[in-house]
């Protein structure tokens, strides 16, 4: 063979090998034949792997003197981390014993028989060490009723959810303090009229009227960081009956407050929002949160049951919303069944979510290149605006609970723990809803399970480890490292809490607060399970068609923020009311 051909062949071989080598990161550790091997495949996403590394290490140590197989002592955990899930079709031939994945449909995997029955683990107390178990609550008791009912199939459990987090707004607390963007005590923009907002938003408004409106606006906000703050969307402050109501103090309580805040931010040289173009479903998830937060947990869950009694359905009069003398939509109550579940698309909370979507894309409200920004760049701009002079300060990022761990590399060494960022508690649409619980939606379907094709020799150690991962200690470890909550019920010890970052503490305070209700986006009735294809969190609520300015019917994707923005760009603006009715007509 000629030298050139040989060279070309070598390059191709090298390239192929390199690409193969990059497929998943498998622990290079050599197999120790004197120990029992436990192989774990973990989808290493935003939450990182530190929590799992720590627990694996502890497990190996705790069971160093235990024999799970004849002739072998101790456990050697071999980890395979990458960002991809293992598809069900690859599991039968897969050597891993335990899988910990994201965005995995439990029922699809179950239907394929790739998950081992782990009812004995779930219906037992969690393992804490060699021959020691917890004694207070069984693992099933740590699951909420919703998870228990979803994960139990014909009386058996095949998997356990990993995390529970919403995708919503995260805000820069330091920036809010520096720019004094918190509402002062008893201040509210509820008296503001549309005309006031128009004047505030317009550059060419009458000078005198604008100055008056600006005075009114500035009077809402604190002058010093030590000033007493408003009570926020929960309408309370301090700790009452063991519930901390101070977390949202100073934050807008209503949409009008929120709009006032956005104008205040822009006037202070702050770009309110940034989001990314890699995962645009974050925007849909945010709006699902807004919808649920306005609709209330019980009413919102009717969507996940495709049934129930809906008490807050907007009444339509022909092709328009029926309104009372004050201009508020008239609502009605209906029993939802198989023949009319499309009526759930008339929930008033959704109409309010669509209003909220429009605030995000109003002039100057978002970083204009968000639609071309990767999620890592968005995080970096949000954390370090000082490094990007053309971008400037940004108040909110649309992100999931994993972002703070995911963005670790963007913090200067040693600064992340005390960096003042926080999940944001959303405002209510109207004043009358102040004080109702903070409702959020956890729409990522995480799952841990044992490979049904696991060799019998490894089953005991796999089940023991899976049980260990559900112990209170393991749950706390997860929260400590990820600043997020496992999808089980547990508390944090003072010791763990004190070790957490500022963000982690606030995130925990919100997630574990009895005033917060987190709804898992799961089909919650048998009927809903049969119609699961309709229940895609990224499209369920907002798909529609509309008649464009040329009179043609066009499909509309499931992302309202993108849709409103596109309509504006096409100079074919649609109102939230039109869009709302279109969604209903599309689904009915």
């Amino acid at each position, binding site marked *: 063979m000629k030298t050139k051909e040989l060279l070309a062949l070598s390059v191709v071989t090298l390239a192929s090998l390199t690409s193969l080598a990059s497929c998943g990161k498998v622990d290079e550790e050599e197999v120790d034949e004197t120990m029992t091997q436990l192989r774990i495949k973990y989808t290493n996403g935003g939450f990182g792997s530190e929590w799992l590394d720590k627990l694996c290490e502890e497990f190996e140590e705790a069971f160093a003197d235990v024999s799970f197989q004849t002739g072998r002592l101790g456990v050697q955990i071999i980890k395979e981390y990458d960002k991809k899930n293992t598809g069900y079709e690859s599991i039968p031939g897969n050597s891993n014993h335990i899988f910990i994945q994201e965005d995995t*449909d439990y029922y699809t995997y179950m239907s394929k028989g790739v998950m081992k029955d782990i009812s004995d683990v779930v219906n037992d107390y969690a393992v804490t060490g060699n021959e020691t178990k917890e004694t207070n609550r069984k693992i099933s008791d740590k699951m909420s009723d919703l998870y228990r009912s979803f994960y139990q199939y014909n009386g058996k459990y095949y998997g356990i959810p990993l995390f529970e987090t919403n995708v919503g707004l995260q805000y820069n607390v330091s920036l809010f303090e520096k720019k004094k963007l918190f509402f002062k005590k008893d201040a509210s923009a509820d008296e503001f009229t549309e005309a006031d907002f128009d004047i505030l938003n317009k550059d060419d408004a009458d000078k005198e009227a604008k100055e008056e409106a600006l005075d009114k606006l500035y009077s809402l906000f604190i002058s010093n960081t030590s000033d007493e703050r408003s009570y926020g969307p929960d309408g309370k402050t301090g700790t009452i009956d063991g519930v901390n109501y101070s977390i949202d103090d100073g934050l807008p309580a209503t949409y009008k407050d929120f709009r006032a805040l956005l104008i205040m931010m822009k006037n202070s040289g702050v770009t309110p929002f940034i989001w990314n173009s890699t*995962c645009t479903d974050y925007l849909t998830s945010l709006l699902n949160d807004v919808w649920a937060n306005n609709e209330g947990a019980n009413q919102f869950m009717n969507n996940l049951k495709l049934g129930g009694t809906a008490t807050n359905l907007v009444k339509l009069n022909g092709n328009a919303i029926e309104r009372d003398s004050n201009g508020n939509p008239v609502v009605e109550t209906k029993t939802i069944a198989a023949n009319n579940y499309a009526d759930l698309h008339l929930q008033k909370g959704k109409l309010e979510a669509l209003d909220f979507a429009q605030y995000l894309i109003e002039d100057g409200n978002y970083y204009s290149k968000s639609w071309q920004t990767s999620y890592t760049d968005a995080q970096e701009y949000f954390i370090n605006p000082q490094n990007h002079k053309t971008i400037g300060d940004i108040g909110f990022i649309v992100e999931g609970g994993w972002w703070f761990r995911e963005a670790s590399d963007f913090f200067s060494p040693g600064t992340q723990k005390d960096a003042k960022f926080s999940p944001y508690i959303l405002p209510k649409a109207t004043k009358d809803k102040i004080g109702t619980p903070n409702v959020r939606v956890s729409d990522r379907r995480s799952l841990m399970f044992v490979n049904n094709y696991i060799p019998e020799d490894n089953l005991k150690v796999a089940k023991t480890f899976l049980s260990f991962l559900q112990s209170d200690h393991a749950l706390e470890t997860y929260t400590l490292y990820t600043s997020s909550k496992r999808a089980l019920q547990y508390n944090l010890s003072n010791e763990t809490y004190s070790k957490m970052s500022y963000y982690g503490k606030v995130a925990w305070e919100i997630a574990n607060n009895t005033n917060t209700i987190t709804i898992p986006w799961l089909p919650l009735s048998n009927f809903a399970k049969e119609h699961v294809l309709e229940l895609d969190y990224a499209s369920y609520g907002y798909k529609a068609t509309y008649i464009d300015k040329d009179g043609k019917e066009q499909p509309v994707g499931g992302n309202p923020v993108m849709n409103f923005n*596109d309509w504006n760009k096409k100079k074919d603006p649609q109102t939230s009311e039109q869009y709302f009715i279109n969604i209903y007509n599309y689904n009915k």
Partner: protein
Amino acid sequence: MKMTATKPVTKTTKKKIDRSSTVFYCVMVALPLLQFLIFYVVVNFNSILMAFQEYNTLTFSTTLSLSNFEGWFTKQTLPILGVCLKNSMIYFGVTLLAIPISLCISYYIYKKFHLSQFFKVISFIPSIICISALAIMYKAFVNYGMSSIFTTAPISLEYSEARQPMLIVFYLLVNFSGNLLIYINAMSQASPSVIEAAKIDGASEFRIFIHVIIPQIWGTIVSLLIIFMAGIVTNQAFLFTFFGINAPAELQTLGYFIFRNIQEGATPNVEASYYQTSALGIMLTLVLAPITILVRNLMLKFGPRED
């Protein structure tokens, strides 16, 4: 002149010839038929079967049903399919429009005219560079390099009037070189003596191209057109490369729509999606296959001939 008498064909000889012809035909057809059975029917048997089964996502059971077909004729799905079909046809249309240009450039290179080698290298670059890298470069060039022309970055999730045209340009650029290679290869098979004869008869380059080269490579053109046609429903037009699973609804092609529909993680229950998508695939095949065969036959019947 010595005449040789031909042996009259007897009934037995005719039978023998017929039999051997049948055997030859069977032997020749058996292999592709076997290949079709193994690599299409057997492989796709379950996929085809799925189209006629309704999958229950609660009990995981299936029942024979035509509901997967009916499901595509609803007011929810028809507008989406309409847009996808329109986009697929746009890409097919521009591919057709590009054929004469590709043929001209191929001929230019084939004839080794001025700077032909340079054009050859330039044209083949998209085939040499990895498509993802090419897409990133193109996106950066269009969004940032041409930012003085476009107020909104054309290749982004945000609507821009230039978005689809820019995607079409990329599609053409990438597909162009592949076709070029095939055309040049076909032209090089053209008989030099026929070209020489045409030259002696005083034919211009244009006439040689139209009346000698095109008829000689007509088979190749027909084959490529059949491939393009068959690809109407599978063509993703590089939307996944640019947008992942988030391509805006108005840009989606049938190929992209089908691919996204069965993408794990993009749907709440991928297993159930398989059944529905299978039905869509069968319907599209049933529509497209006869049209493709018809077009092929018409082109072969009415196309230019070498004689």
